[in-house]
């Protein structure tokens, strides 16, 4: 691109400049030539007249015409030779006098001109240039012709010298121009080259490179949009990488989650098949097989639910009574609450909330489930529904063992457990809060966690409308 621009600009420029110079010098030469032609023509005319007068005078004094012409010729010849003007006299087309330093006669064709017309030529004789003017003497001497040669070699050389120096100047000028053009293009194309090198870097995965904004308006615009593009690519790549990492982690975790119950089921089945067991041992082994199978079933159900909620485009939203929701949750969790001796209370300031009944219920049950797991015996769990900053909020608070800030960051990750061993014992599969988050997202709601270790944990579901 740059080289093309350079070559074409240079070629066009040089072409126009040199053609211009050529045309100028040709027309100049022509103009000059016609100028001097005119003056020599006048000179010739004057010479013919004065010679005729001389001849007439001498004729009257009794000189022969030839003699008179010879005398007159001699006197003028001397005078003009100094000015490098040479004369030739023809009588009946035969040269009788010549002051030319070389032998030259007019050709027949040149002689055949009409009597009273004066002919003008530029003739090259022996390498020198002459203006050749031929014309007959008037009336009574018309068998005589006067040819006038003006040596213009020096003048023409002078012109040529001037033209040559013009061409030399144009060559020097072209050289300077080509260098200047090169530097100019180098400067103008520099941002483009940087863009291309940085695009290559981006193509190789280095998204952090940025261009500085420099150069004219157009270039600055290109650079700016290029930077915007690089930013976007970087952002999207990071998004993709995060996404991929998250997926990979989920798969790793899932593999681990599945492998553990599988190991147990396989192991106990093999144990039962290959060894001689007492009834008690048999019961223990089958019990492990059953509970681990249940765990697998729970994981697959929760995962399926997670996928279905995520895939579902539109969920059915209805207005539901909060009071009823809390009552239903209490009913569902009643057995677990009684087992651990935990008290569940609720306060409601909202009339209703819009959402999918099953999903909202499942979310609150999950949150209360977590609260129960966090509480020791004689704990207390509080459900609240109220307005805050004109947003509807459902909140579950427990006075259990709480979480550290680091744990809070990870709680919604699938398969993350704050207390692995205990959670498994109580039948948790590590998917509860991941599910809650998906449900909240479907309702354009947000989950917010706050906790103090060994004191309390509050989970808020903040609805946006």
């Amino acid at each position, binding site marked *: 691109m740059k080289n093309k621009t350079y070559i074409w600009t240079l070629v066009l420029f040089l072409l126009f400049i040199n053609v211009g110079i050529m045309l100028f010098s040709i027309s100049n030469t022509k103009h000059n030539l016609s100028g001097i032609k005119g003056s020599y023509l006048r000179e010739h005319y004057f010479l013919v007249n004065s010679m005729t007068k001389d001849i007439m005078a001498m004729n009257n004094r009794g000189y022969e015409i030839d003699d008179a012409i010879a005398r007159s010729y001699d006197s003028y010849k001397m005078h003009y030779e100094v000015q490098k003007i040479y004369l030739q006299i023809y009588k009946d087309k035969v040269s009788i006098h010549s002051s030319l330093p070389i032998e030259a006669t007019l050709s027949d064709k040149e002689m055949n001109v009409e009597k009273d017309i004066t002919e003008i030529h530029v003739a090259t004789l022996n390498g020198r240039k002459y203006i050749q003017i031929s014309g007959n003497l008037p009336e009574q001497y018309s068998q005589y012709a006067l040819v006038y040669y003006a040596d213009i070699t020096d003048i023409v050389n002078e012109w040529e010298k001037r033209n040559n120096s013009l061409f030399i100047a144009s060559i020097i000028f072209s050289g300077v121009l080509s260098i200047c053009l090169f530097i100019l293009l180098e400067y103008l194309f520099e941002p483009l080259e940087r863009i291309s090198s940085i695009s290559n870097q981006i193509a190789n995965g280095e998204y952090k490179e940025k261009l500085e904004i420099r150069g004219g308006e157009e270039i600055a615009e290109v650079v700016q949009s290029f930077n915007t593009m690089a930013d976007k690519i970087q952002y999207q790549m990071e998004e993709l990488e995060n996404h991929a990492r998250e997926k990979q982690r989920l798969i*790793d975790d899932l593999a681990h989650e599945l492998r553990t119950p599988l*190991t147990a089921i396989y192991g106990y089945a093999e144990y039962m098949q290959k*060894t*001689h067991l007492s009834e008690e041992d048999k019961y223990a082994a089958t019990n*492990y097989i059953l509970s681990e199978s249940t765990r697998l079933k729970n994981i697959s159900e929760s995962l399926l639910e997670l996928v279905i909620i995520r895939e579902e485009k539109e969920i059915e939203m209805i207005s539901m009574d909060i009071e009823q929701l809390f009552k239903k949750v209490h009913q569902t969790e009643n057995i677990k609450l009684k087992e651990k001796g935990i008290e569940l209370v609720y306060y409601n300031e909202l009339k209703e909330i819009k959402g999918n009944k099953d999903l909202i219920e499942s979310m609150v049950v999950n949150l209360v489930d977590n609260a129960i797991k966090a509480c020791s015996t004689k704990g207390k769990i509080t459900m609240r529904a109220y307005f805050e900053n004109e947003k509807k909020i459902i909140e579950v608070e427990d006075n259990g063992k709480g979480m550290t800030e680091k744990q809070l960051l990870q709680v919604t990750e699938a398969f993350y457990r704050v207390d692995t061993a205990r959670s*498994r014992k109580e039948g948790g599969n590590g998917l509860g809060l991941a599910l809650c988050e998906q449900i909240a997202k479907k309702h354009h709601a947000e989950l917010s966690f706050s906790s103090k270790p060994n004191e309390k944990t509050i989970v808020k579901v903040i609805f946006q409308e």
Partner: protein
Amino acid sequence: MADILVVEDEEAINELIRRNLKLVGHTCFLAMDGETAVEMINNKSFDLIVLDIMLPEMDGFEVLEQVKGTPTILLTAKRSVEDRVKGLVMGADDYLTKPFEMLELIARVEAILRRTKKDEDTFVIDNVRVEFHSRRLLLEENVVEYTPKEFELLEVLIRNRNIALSREKLLELVWGFEYIGESRTVDVHIQKLRKKLGLEKRIVTVYKLGYRLEV
């Protein structure tokens, strides 16, 4: 008869390993997390530790750092080569990937115990006494003549006692992979062993599976 510490946060698997190792005569001690494990290591000396890498809070590698001199088998759910290499570099003796087979667990435990000379040298059942290192077989204090394959078969049965072994497995363990024999060979050798040592009631035939030495 080794003392083995099993560190595994999944109760089901912990219990499974304990039960399997108990079958072949080892005594197991269970730890559900890293801290407990380290405490137990400091208070008692074990012949072997079976250590899960994925433990809550303090993971297997951290526990491994605290283990001084006790042979360790790592238990890992991940198929990650890095984890295994890291464990082996840190001084673990072997590793086992979940899910594992009973015989694999027992074989690896046995191999390490043999290397550290903590394996049993003599085994007594009824009137029979087997001395592994000197390869002597005694019935009521009288030396019994045997072929090398018979002794090896008996050893495999003892090492995996209380566990049913299929004919194919026995062929593989005693005769080796390259042996292209019939499983009848196993039956013939078992018959000879039973007769020679009077172990008809001890070496039982398990329906569709193979044989088991019951102790």
